[in-house]
């Protein structure tokens, strides 16, 4: 196993920058998730590490070697492709055996490793089949198996669970996690499913538009999103972002809405707002940090329920506030009907404030 370092990595296609000045350090044995919306450069970043595309500028280290000019086969990596890339003319067995054959392992050892991987992935009965005779989920497991038979310095996985049904996905998720713990494997794991990243990864790198937005543990990213993009991308349902106007006066700060209501901030939050470059500030709040009242309460803001979505465990209420949709979760025994008048109370300790100009999170000193 080895650590991986990306230094100021840039990849351009013509004038289009697919990956932009990305710097990341992945420690030996660390599980790092690369998340972001479709087209943000996740696969491109992974291909750069794998050596399938060459970087426009920047350096890639695997272990202590600069691998910029090394062939993929010399980088000591294994990769699971987003579209599987199974060898169609080979049986499942031969697909799994191929990386071992290319590394000239003895026959007996190849057989032992292939059967072990097949057992872990529960496809011993499928070994003689051709890829076209498998379901999408089975094909995905073969793709995963072809990486797991090896013992490389780094595993690169490009959405390896995207095509599995919900039950199998949860099962494979824990299988990969166990695999990581047992082998102390270094894994770079691409997904656009932030829940997968949060549940599996030691650290997550959030990307958008080719830029690295934030790189931290899932708990930190969740609790302290660096900017509005990360705030809205991580967490489900998404954090509500309400654009407001800040006004300072006699030591405190007040956020005012165009709708007429205003919200007094705690001293700590007032400090944050004071650092904004503009008067326009965005208030961010996760669904669980907003209290819903059915009657007026001091400090609560009047709003109208818009939609109500019972999910069994919790009921999600959406309300319109200052032109933004606000998500609130309430216990299912609180009955709310659409268009009902409600009052919302924000938790000052757990609210987020963003500069609407730079979109960056505002921090107290």
């Amino acid at each position, binding site marked *: 196993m080895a650590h991986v370092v990306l230094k100021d990595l840039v990849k351009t296609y013509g004038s289009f920058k697919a990956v932009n000045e990305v710097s990341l350090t992945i420690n030996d044995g660390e599980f790092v998730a690369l998340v972001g919306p479709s087209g943000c450069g996740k696969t491109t970043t992974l291909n750069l590490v794998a050596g399938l595309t060459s970087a426009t500028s920047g350096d890639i280290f695997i272990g202590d070697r600069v691998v910029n000019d090394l062939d993929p*086969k010399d980088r000591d990596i294994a990769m699971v492709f987003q579209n599987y890339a199974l060898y*169609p003319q080979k049986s499942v067995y031969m697909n799994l055996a191929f990386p071992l054959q290319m590394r000239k392992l003895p026959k007996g050892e190849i057989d032992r490793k292939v059967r072990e991987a097949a057992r872990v992935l529960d496809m011993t009965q499928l070994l003689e089949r051709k890829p076209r005779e498998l379901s999408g989920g089975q094909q995905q497991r073969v793709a995963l198996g072809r990486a797991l038979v090896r013992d490389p310095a780094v595993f690169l996985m490009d959405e390896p669970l995207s095509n599995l049904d919900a039950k199998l996905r949860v099962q494979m998720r824990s299988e990969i996690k166990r695999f990581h713990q047992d082998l102390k494997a270094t894994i770079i794991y691409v997904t656009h499913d932030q829940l997968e990243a949060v549940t599996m990864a030691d650290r997550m790198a959030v990307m958008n538009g080719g830029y690295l937005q934030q790189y931290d543990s899932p708990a930190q990213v969740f609790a302290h999103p660096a900017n509005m993009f990360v705030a809205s991308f991580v967490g489900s349902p998404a954090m509500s972002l309400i654009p407001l106007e800040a006004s300072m006066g006699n030591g405190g700060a007040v956020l005012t809405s165009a709708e007429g209501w205003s919200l007094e901030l705690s001293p700590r939050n007032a400090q944050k707002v004071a650092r904004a470059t503009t008067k326009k500030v965005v208030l961010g709040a996760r669904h669980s940090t907003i209290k819903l009242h059915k009657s007026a309460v001091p400090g609560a803001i009047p709003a109208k329920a818009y939609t109500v979505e019972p999910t069994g465990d919790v009921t999600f209420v959406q309300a319109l506030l200052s032109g933004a949709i606000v998500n609130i979760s309430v216990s299912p025994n609180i009955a709310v009907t659409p268009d009902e008048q409600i009052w919302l109370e924000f938790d000052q300790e757990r609210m987020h404030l963003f500069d609407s100009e730079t979109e960056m999170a505002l921090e107290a000193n």
Partner: protein
Amino acid sequence: MSTVSETISRGQPARRLRIDGWRWGGRAFLVFMLLYTALPMIWMLLTSIKSGFAAMQFPPQWWPDQPTLASYQKLLDPQNSVGQDFLRFFWNSLIVSTATTILSVIVAVPAAYAFSRFTFPGRNFLFFAVLLRNMFPAVIFLVPLFILMRAIGLVNTHGSLVLTYLTFGLPLAIWLLKGFYDNIPVQLEQAARIDGATRFQAFILIVMPLSAPGIIATAIYSFIGAWNEYIYAYTFLSKNEQLTLPVGIQRFFSENTTDFPGLMAASFMMSVPVVVLFLLLQRYFVRALTEGAVKH
């Protein structure tokens, strides 16, 4: 098909009539094409087993009264001069066509792969330049090529024909193969390279087997083109012992104009290698080899 038209036609007789009309039209067309291609072949076969006299009769004998294999025996007998010539022409054609086929596969495979996978300066220009040759009828190049061959001393050699057939066959072969390579997902090679293969190994071990139908189609196309070609063989070669079948048959039998059974027997035997080639290789065409490789 029938259930479809029945479901549609319920309560709509006019609709059914139209569908049936198309269907019968299609069948009639297929039958016509079948007769159009098969009848001359059948007539060729029938004539080849007639005696010389029976072949000239009018009205014709639709079925030979006394079928005989004499023409075949004569052509395949290395003892008499007719047989010696025929077998030599056959051998010459086989050499020229096989050499053309092997060379065109050797050149077309890497060329098509490069056009499909790499971007390099002048790629588009080259790709269409390759096709330019096919925009003109082949005879236009007869005189220039003859002068060229004479200049490099290739007149009266089989090499001149192989080179010429290559210039005619390669453009389409490259186009055809490029289509095959375009349809093989690039991730397969990438996976192989990560699994420890060099770029060349990835091509040989993974891509080549998947493009087998394309390579076979290319080979058949080149072989038939070379096997049947007449004008260039007629112009470039003058020594009797070098002639290929199309020229040889024509020249040899024009001295014996009345021997139609012999001519037909020779023509029939000339078509045998092509048919055998097709029968042996056709099963490779129907398989979609990349099925199951990637998610759709």
